[in-house]
């Protein structure tokens, strides 16, 4: 792989950009791999990358039914934060946030990580107490957050109306090293690095069956033929239920649509990420100037990547009250992704009833921010059979009642 650098840009400028390589190869599948990862989204590619980098397992295929990064990786609102209440969540999200800081250098690919700061508004007394509690928990967990008052909120984000008639801003949980990153670039950067290590990324190849023998996975059937493997990792987000059905086990997951939208680009007016969980909306400004807006998930099962219009209306209505400046903005694009929700709104990174099959799913509405940490933990789990990062997130927590209850702890929006 030729490295990207200022020198490379100068070199290519002098020869009509004829020397750029393809970022990753598109090989035909081999007969057999040590590890097959199903799903070339952020989490799948990160898992493959850390398998290679941390454990030297490089005979790996990442299989994708569409194109890489074309699912939820390319459909989120790109927010990165780690201010969770529960210890296992804070650990894995903080690991991810820490890895994001150096990911561009690590991958030699500019993922445009922008630690601009994330604030979660407290708009009721209940939320004030909740976020103060989270700030204390974060201090114990080693996650840098702070509870700030309304004046500091106004200072950090002048376009906000903090005296809203219905939900005035009473303060915020502020994580100065949270922020955003370019979501596609995260997938592309990992894909390029995986390909460089000799891994095969096989796109437009849908898995149609999981072949088993004696309680073990021996391979997968795909639209490009059967492929054998020693270990299988299932990292398919919204379609986890479909894959689990093929493999013959059940999951505590329901797939629902979550939507986001962006406005027409405007001049820079907001250099932080704001989340308002009571009124249910969150917003940041992209480098292009678009306001990136996300809201609530639908309440019913759906695989269509289209959501309900009334959720968009609710989200935008709430945000207009908090940010009167956006009331005349036109919305440019609007899309939905299928997210996999677990009972406690925490992910599953776990062994499965099949001995050599591992699953990474259930990230629900908060997967993008976790990509590097999730890949790191999942790779360790697949290589060594256990990982301190994923310990709490095993499948049997539902049977044993060891929930990591972020649905109650962290409010609603992710």
């Amino acid at each position, binding site marked *: 792989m030729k490295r990207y650098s200022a020198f490379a840009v100068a070199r290519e400028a002098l020869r009509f950009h004829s020397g750029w390589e393809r970022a990753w190869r598109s090989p035909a599948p081999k007969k057999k791999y040590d590890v097959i990862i199903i799903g070339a989204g952020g989490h799948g590619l990160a898992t493959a990358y850390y398998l290679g980098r941390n454990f030297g397992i490089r005979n790996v295929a990442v299989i994708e039914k569409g194109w890489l990064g074309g699912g939820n990786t390319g459909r989120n609102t790109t927010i990165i934060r780690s201010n969770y209440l529960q210890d296992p969540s804070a650990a894995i999200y903080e690991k991810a946030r820490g890895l994001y800081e150096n990911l561009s250098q690590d991958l030699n690919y500019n993922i445009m990580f922008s630690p601009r700061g994330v604030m979660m508004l407290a708009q009721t007394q209940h939320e004030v107490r909740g976020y103060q509690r989270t700030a204390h928990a974060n201090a114990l967990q080693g996650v840098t957050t702070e509870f700030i008052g309304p004046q500091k909120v106004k200072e950090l984000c002048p376009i906000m109306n903090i005296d809203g008639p219905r939900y005035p801003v009473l303060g915020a949980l502020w994580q100065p090293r949270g922020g955003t990153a370019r979501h596609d670039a995260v997938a592309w950067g990992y894909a390029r690095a995986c390909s460089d290590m000799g891994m095969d990324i096989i796109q437009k190849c849908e898995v149609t069956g999981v072949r088993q023998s004696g309680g073990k996975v021996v391979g997968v059937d795909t639209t490009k033929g059967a492929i054998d493997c020693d270990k299988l990792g299932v990292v398919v987000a919204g*379609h986890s*239920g*479909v894959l689990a*059905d093929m493999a013959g086990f*059940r*999951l*505590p*997951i*329901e*797939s629902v649509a979550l939507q986001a939208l962006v406005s027409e680009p405007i001049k820079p007016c907001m250099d932080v990420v704001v989340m308002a969980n009571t009124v249910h909306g969150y917003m940041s400004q992209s480098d292009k100037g678009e306001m990136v807006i996300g809201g609530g998930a*639908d*309440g*019913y*099962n*759906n*695989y*269509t990547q*289209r959501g*309900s*219009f*009334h959720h968009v209306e609710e989200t935008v209505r709430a945000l207009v009250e908090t940010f009167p400046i956006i009331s005349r903005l036109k919305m440019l694009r609007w899309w939905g992704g299928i997210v996999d929700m*677990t*009972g406690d709104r925490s992910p599953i990174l776990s062994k499965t009833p099949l001995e050599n099959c591992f699953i990474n799913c259930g990230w629900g509405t908060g997967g993008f921010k976790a990509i590097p940490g999730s890949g790191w933990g999942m790779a360790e789990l697949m290589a060594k059979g256990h990982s301190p990062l994923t310990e709490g997130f095993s499948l049997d927590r*539902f*049977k*044993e009642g060891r929930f990591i209850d972020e649905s109650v702890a962290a409010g609603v929006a992710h």
Partner: protein
Amino acid sequence: MLILNCPYCGVDAEETELSPGGEAHLKRYGPGSSDADFEDYLFQRENPKGVHFERWRHANGCGKWFHAARCTMTLEVFGTYEAQSLEPPKSIQKAISKKRPGWSWREFS
């Protein structure tokens, strides 16, 4: 926009009038059941890509709970029926079979 016919009051209710209530026909387990049964009842879900049976409440209407048969892949509604049913009426099962030959959903298909 999702429109479901409430089998009690007969109104064609749209989404904002309704509250989703999750999977229908769950088998409820009581005292003395095994951990696995409780896990099944409380957490494990069918989550099919295709034919699905759900509970809905006509919240901003007559307030009653009912069941709906729906396709999660196309958002097509096959029919709605009363909540006091152990399985979907034969007419709805037939309507589904006509449009989705070979469909299955746990014990009835």
